[in-house]
């Protein structure tokens, strides 16, 4: 079971995972906001700055639309790994959008979209502070029970 949390003052649902950007040789842990309305996962500016993403080396010219309008995003191959502690790791190989740097968006969390979420069954119960996901599939599963 991949366990998340309801966070901050907002009650927003978060799940933590490890992001790898192999081409850039960059990795880091991310608190992803679970967003079933997002077609794809996206790395937001605060996480990009924290991880030292070199914007001048990014590729792709993707436009992401939201309620606030359209923003330019780069696209990068990513591997995101989630943990069922001491049981298994679930790795997803996908193309993540990386939002262009924008100070106005620094307080917005990176989003875990349906490119990953569609492969899970999720229990979403904020009344009982229960956010749990069961992975139906992953691009690679690491069994942690085998020594």
């Amino acid at each position, binding site marked *: 079971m991949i366990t998340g949390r309801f966070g901050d003052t907002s009650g927003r649902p978060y799940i933590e995972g490890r992001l790898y950007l192999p081409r850039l040789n960059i990795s880091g842990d991310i608190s992803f906001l679970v967003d079933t309305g997002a077609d794809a996962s996206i790395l937001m500016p605060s996480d990009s700055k924290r991880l030292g993403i070199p914007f001048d080396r990014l590729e792709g010219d993707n436009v992401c639309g939201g309620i606030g309008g359209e923003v330019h995003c780069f696209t990068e191959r990513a591997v995101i790994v989630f943990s069922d502690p001491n049981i298994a*790791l679930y790795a997803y190989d996908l193309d993540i959008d990386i939002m262009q740097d924008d100070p106005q968006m620094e307080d917005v969390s990176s989003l875990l979209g349906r490119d990953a979420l569609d492969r899970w069954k999720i229990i979403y119960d904020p009344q009982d502070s229960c956010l749990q996901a069961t992975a139906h599939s992953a691009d690679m599963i*690491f069994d*942690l029970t085998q020594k």
Partner: protein
Amino acid sequence: MGQVSIKEIIGDPASLDAELQEFRQNASLLSSKRDHLIGKYSKRWIAIYDHQVKADGISLNQLLGKVDELHIPRDRVVIRYIDKNARRMIL
């Protein structure tokens, strides 16, 4: 050149699992200590590492500067802007 495999990318699974558990515990402080955090750090950025707030700042750039000064690994630190009246997000 072909793509690097997932196995090559993540390295030792057991180490990654332990690190993710630690990061999750640090992030969970944002939920469990929220009243304390709002009272002490309202409208400031904070950095959580080793189960405690290690630095705070008025801007993300200032906070990251302090994180670097303290030699806290950026890839493992939890950062968040604390605001009792966080703006409503429609994502």
